[in-house]
């Protein structure tokens, strides 16, 4: 889902996706490209992302991934589920009351 969300902004190559996730999460999520790559391939096999060879800003050829229509639909569905989940967890956790006995 993270990958799909990242690609919503536009097409990126594999390493670019890893970098973007790291920078958007303020380095909190450091996903190694080696782990990300098989996931990319799985998403591609499911038809949610598509890839094509393009030339990068540094004039280097690389494979760029972009979101497909099916992927976009999936992201919307998953995103609302995620939002529901987060708000549910949030309601339970709430702000912590003062810890007594200190």
């Amino acid at each position: 889902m993270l990958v799909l969300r990242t690609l919503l902004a536009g097409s990126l190559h594999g390493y670019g996706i890893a970098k973007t996730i790291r920078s958007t999460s303020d380095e909190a999520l450091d996903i190694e490209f080696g782990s990300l790559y098989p996931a990319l391939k799985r998403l591609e096999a499911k038809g949610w992302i598509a890839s094509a060879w393009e030339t990068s800003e540094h004039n280097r050829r690389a494979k760029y991934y972009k979101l497909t229509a099916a992927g976009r639909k999936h992201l919307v569905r998953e995103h609302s589920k995620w939002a529901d989940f987060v708000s549910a967890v949030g309601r339970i956790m709430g702000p912590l009351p003062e810890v007594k006995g200190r």
Partner: protein
Amino acid sequence: MIWNRLKYLWPAWRRREEREMREELGSLTAIAGSKELGNLTLAMEEVRATWGWTRLDSTLADVRYSLRALRSQPAFVAVAVLSLALAIGANSAIFSLADALLLRPLPVRNPAAVFDVSNTTPDNPLEGMSFPDYRDLRQKSRSFSGLAAYRLTTLAAAANPAAPAQIRFASLVSDNFFPALGVTPASGRVFLPDEAGASAEPVAILSYDFWQQNYAGGSSATGSTLRLNGIVFTIIGVAPASFTGLDRFVRPSIFVPLGMTRRLAGMSADPLEDRGIHNLVVKSRLSPGASPESAQAELAVIGAALEREYAKTNRNRHMAVRTELQRRIQQTPQLLALVKMLMGLVALILIIACSNVANLLLARARARSREIAIRLSIGAGRGRVVRQLMTESLIVSMAGGVAGLFVAYGGIRVLQTLSVPSDPPSVLGVQLDWRVVEFSLLAALVSCIFFGLAPAWQTARTDFVSALKAGGDGASGKGRMSGRDVLVASQIALAMVVLIAAGMFLAGFRNMLVMPPEFRTDHLISLDTAPAVLHYSPEQTKAFYRQLVDRARTMAGVAGAAMTESLPLSPSQTTVSVVPEGYQFPKGREKTVVFGAAVDAGYFSTLNVEIKRGRAFTDDDRAGSRRVAIVNQQFAKTYWPDQDPTGKRIRLDSADGPSAEVVGVAKTGHYLAVNEAPAPFVYLPYEQNPRSRMTLVVQSAGEAGALAAPLRDAVRSIDGNVPVFNLRSVATLYESRVTDTWLQFFQMVGTMGFIGLALATTGLYGLVAYTVSRRVKEIGIRVAIGASHRDVVWLVERRGLILAGAGIAIGGALTAAAAPLLAAGFPGLGVSSPAVYTLVPLALLMVSAVASYVPARRAAGLDPLRALRNE
């Protein structure tokens, strides 16, 4: 989605993806540097896994690896495949026999949905239905979507009046026969409802074989005419090649409507309207929603109503729904016993063969323990190793199964020569078909699990540290050796069971050969005629037969002539229903059906059937004189124990039938088979009990065969249109019934015994030889410190003999348990002869001694220096 996965099966596509992936990762490495990207090898491997066929890949790898491993051990593969091929082949051949005898489904559409409907009475658990009952059932029942009835008969068929008639099996069938069974004709059409009546235009459908033989499969057959029993029938269609009729041993050539019964038999009253004639076989298809149980319940209601309405014919008569297999078992329980015994014996052989292969695998496993240990130590899971070893076993067993099919084919060719006792002759449908192929592969699969799993598991449990350390072929665990000992001992035990069964067959067979037939078989020739085909009146028939016997008696070279309704041991034995005076029947039964025949006055002297008490029939026992009968000793013993049977009376047909006085007692003979239990028999004088079809028996002064042509001429001189058939010497008939079939069965069981013995011997030899090779060092030391040649031979030999002794002891116990079963299935054959029980163990012991002597000699010939230097 599926396509996405499927395309990865294509190697070119995979190569393409692989290239893409490498290229992509290469380009990214150029952008980011390899350190930044992490473990790319692992990533690539994971991606390959998403291609989804790793399981298949690893299986293929297993197969490739197994093939390579097997190729390096051709001797092992040859012995294993050969053992399995013999055993699986024997199993498949016997399966095809069992299929022909009992198991094969009816050749109709969806045979599993076809049920048999028949009558049961206290006297007979499986009796046919009468046509009126069938008609009522068809009208009243709701459980069936189709009810077809038929009756098997023989007809004289001729293409034209001039051609000689051939006697053929035919089925008289109900109008809905073909549609109800789901059989569509190969050409032409099926019967129409208005062709069912007794006065309808005569029409016939040919069987595919008959069409091929007599019309060369030509399209002109349909529409042409055929004379059946002298009546002209129009051929309207040909049955498909797959439809060979509903009987196991008889393939009808011609199908005609049941309505023709009266005209074909030349009778004045229509037998179809007689509720007392129960000779129809009825097959049903359940309607949707009905179950055999619900149908049975409905039949009980209908049967009770019929019983109330027609008390005379339907008293104590019930209807039963059976599966085809249940019907066949009910019909021929002795075949079930035979099939069980044969299947049991071949199953034992398969077990022997499997133990053989298991033993080989265990021996091989030790040689391979180093290789396995290496695989385990570099991280192969034990499950993975077991899988790989099982793949090897599966390849071996499948090769055995396929080779077994060739063995089975050979066996089936032999089984096809088994004769079915019938007139006219018919074939036993033993054939190599898909059912047999499926059975072979299934047997191969089962045996693979049987012989492969334990050794594979054992091997994978190898303690790899010690296996690698020992360097050679692993440490010798005593427990494992004893496992192999058990295998070999049980092989010998099972081989002994099979051999003793073969021996019992042989002993029983010899008994049968020396058993007197109780009637003359030499210098006799017999022939059948059927003047009824020409629609003779009963008086004409009687005159014809009287004339025929007279002519035969006056022919040159004839010592005597007689007539009988059925010859002893001929395939068609006739029966009579009688009520013996003074005999108290069990409740519900009121008469008994026993073998019986109408014979003339010359019968007893011509066939040399001994009269023990009273007198034989004379020419004075004619129509109008006092009714008489002769019973055999067994009949007297059964119904009038400890009484003088002469002077007693029996009622014929039923309790209110005509009464006949017993004037003589004949010696009990064999009627259907030589090995049958003594059966009661009733002789009736022909003149008082005329029959439409009689057999003429002529005793010759010289060679019986020389009378064949003159006898044929004699029939022709009385009436040229009367068909003559089954013209043969009684000795030939006797041999075919007594010797041939049983000789073939004996050969079959003998072959099984031989295969079992050969496999068990191979197993023993293999084990002893293996032990010798494992003990080279020990034997070397023994020789070096002065053990003599004889000591060494004995050392090895002793081991083989101990195993054989253990096997024989177990085998003896097993046989003692199995022998009663064998004896029960085969009266007269399951003879426990002491010679068999002594000879078989002795033979086994001798073979075992020889099998272990070969490796023992080799051990004794060892050069101690070389044996020790090997280390």
